[in-house]
């Protein structure tokens, strides 16, 4: 097991390097730092001195890969690639364009992101599984058909509609919760409840339909027929046998997103004014703050790789027939 984990972590390394090279190419080779400076300072009416100053302030004045002018190890170390990309492996993200420390911002903003993302994950999973169970219990009836139609209809509605509609109905018409904002501690619940409900509603259509097919597939198995032949009630078969076995693919499939919960949701956070990592990213995109976007890409990829690893581990825990080698 331990050997497997170490091997997988080593396997993750080239992927992270690949991600880094891709983002580096996107940010520095496709566009030179000069282009970026001109973009930030305004395309017209910009002097070469201003560009140079902008680059020096942010450390973009070094060569890309190879600094021939430096001494010894400095040939590699005093380059943009080393300063901006390699240091990320040591979780040194540097500073944003507005001068703030990115690592500190991330630590501060993780809490609000999790406060929304974790309830969405847990409740969403619970709601989708319950709804799918309901449909399966009444399978091949009009209720089932209506439920599937409802799922397809809900899938076809834009996520923006759920957000805008929810804010309008709950906050503006009913005055139940504030439209947006965030507070520390228990008062956060007031701000978090609407985004959570909206995200759960927006996601339930596709996941409930997906889970329904998993449940139905499980129903065709031989052990279900055996259980029925033993004279077990339909409810007992559903909850004791089908549910337990179908939960394995559902839960292991959900594990992959757990680490990514830290990243928060871009849309929800931007709309509801939650000061999490999602809105941080959106703000960085709008302000064209490349340092922040680069850091978020790196963290996101690292978390995704952790998620894949967790998925593999959860398979072994859920299904004793699978051994990791």
């Amino acid at each position, binding site marked *: 097991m331990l050997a497997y984990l170490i091997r997988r972590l080593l396997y993750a390394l*080239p*992927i992270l390097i*690949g*991600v880094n090279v*891709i*983002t580096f190419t*996107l*940010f520095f080779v*496709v*566009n030179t730092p000069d*282009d*970026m400076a*001109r*973009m930030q300072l305004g*395309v017209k009416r910009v002097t070469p001195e201003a560009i140079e100053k902008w680059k020096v302030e942010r450390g973009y004045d070094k060569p890309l890969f190879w600094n021939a002018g430096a001494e010894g190890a400095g040939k590699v170390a005093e380059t943009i690639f080393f300063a901006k990309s390699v240091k990320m492996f040591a979780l040194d993200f540097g500073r944003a364009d507005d001068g703030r420390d990115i690592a500190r911002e991330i630590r501060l903003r993780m809490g609000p992101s999790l406060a929304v993302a974790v309830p969405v994950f847990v409740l969403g999973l619970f709601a989708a599984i319950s709804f799918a169970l309901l449909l399966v219990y009444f399978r091949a009836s009009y209720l089932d058909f209506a439920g599937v139609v409802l799922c*397809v*209809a809900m*899938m*076809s*509605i*834009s*996520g*923006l*509609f759920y957000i*805008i509609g929810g*804010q*309008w109905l709950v906050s*503006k018409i009913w005055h139940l919760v504030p439209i947006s904002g965030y507070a520390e501690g228990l008062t956060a619940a007031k701000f978090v409840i609407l985004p959570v409900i909206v995200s759960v509603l927006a996601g339930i259509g596709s996941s409930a339909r997906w889970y329904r097919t998993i449940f139905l597939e499980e129903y065709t198995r031989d052990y279900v027929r055996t259980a029925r032949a033993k004279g077990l009630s339909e409810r007992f078969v559903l909850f004791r046998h089908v549910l337990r076995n179908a939960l394995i693919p559902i839960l292991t499939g959900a594990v992959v997103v757990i680490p*990514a919960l830290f*990243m928060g949701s*871009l*849309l929800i956070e*931007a709309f509801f004014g939650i000061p999490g990592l999602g809105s941080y*990213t*959106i703000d960085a*995109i*709008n302000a*064209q703050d*490349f340092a922040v*976007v*680069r850091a*978020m*890409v790196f963290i*996101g*990829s690292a978390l*995704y*790789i952790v998620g*894949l690893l967790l998925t593999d581990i959860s398979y072994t825990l859920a299904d004793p027939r699978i051994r990791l080698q």
Partner: protein
Amino acid sequence: MKFVLLWSDVLFFLLLAVAIGGGIWASRVEHLRLSWRKVGTHRVGMAAATLLVAFVAVALLDSLHYRERLPGEQDTYAVEVRSALDALLTGLRTRTEKTYSAPLATHSFAKETLDGESRDFPRLKHAGAHLGSDLAAHETDIAHKLVQGLGMGLVVWLVFWLAGAPLRRAAPHLAWTVAFATLLMLCLAAGPVAMLAQGYHVLGTDKVGQDVLYLTLKSIRTGLLIGTLTTLIMLPAAVFLGLLAGYAGGWIDDVIQYLYTTLNSIPGVLLIAAAVLMMQVVIDTHPEWFATSAERADARLLALCAILGITSWTGLCRLLRGETLKLRELEYVQAARALGVSGLRILARHILPNVMHIVMIAIVMDFSGLVLAEAVLSYVGIGVDPNTISFGTMINTARMELAREPMVWWSLAAAFVFMFVLVLAANLFADVVRDAFDPRVVK
């Protein structure tokens, strides 16, 4: 008049040609014909297909671009690039008001100071102008036009029905009843809208007084292009790499797997955001590449399609790799190899046709997600050019309107309803296609 062929038009026409060519090819191959017949006999499938064809027709009209010739001088053309749809909807496009007005209203939505002292809702410049001062006739006029429109819709439908007679005779087992019933509903909805649009703003006007109906119709092309071109752009790479990885194995497989795992591990939105930001810098620093603003917007649209394609080809590639791994070990492929058929030929002749159903299903399944993604991305500011009319930009400009008192709901509602109909039709159609083509689904 000078015809303008934007790059997205070229690709759109190419896509239609591929679709038609594929249709002709499929009608000659027995098992594909059977699968498509299954789609055609499915009632939901036919209804959804009819709706989609209507959407494609609008997008097609909107893809025939031209630049108007300016009067007087020799060989000078207007800067704006118009489409055949614009020409059809000249009335809607040019009859702009000052600001918001409700659907079918005769008066503006906001009060203004009229001639000196009194503050009141001013009359709209164009909507209801034919009524003159006889405002009492407003409702009867609407009712009158409604009935006229219904009649017109019915006549148009009858023409379609008669024109469709050879089709029904050629393929009598398909669910034509449902298709023509859907068409009837479309005609009955479009007729009154067309009649009313001549005198009013059927879906109201937006902040700068543009007709919302015009904006929604223009958005259809953008949505369809994003949904289809993205798949078209990524398809060759996904199919080739997927088949190659599965068939060749060894280090080639490792490299391709590494490639898609790496791309997959970057959070999609962030990769899109980063790429779009970069694209924006490139486009902004090279204004000399584009003759008109339409061309620039078009370049950004295509760039977005390409970027979405790069982030979305991995799923299809992995599926194809898995399927090829299975097919590679089958006897007929082994036999072909034993007879000395080259690897590329085996891929093209023996494996590709047998994974086409996966490609087919992926194309239709991806479409609806991409249309929805466009709206979200444009909303975040990393989607299409702000000057391109799309569902996303419509929602983006309308987002603060619900906070107004009384609220402005029509542009949001129009964008969401049109998008819902398009995506719902695509989802339903995708389900039917998947059921018909997926060999694992046994009814």
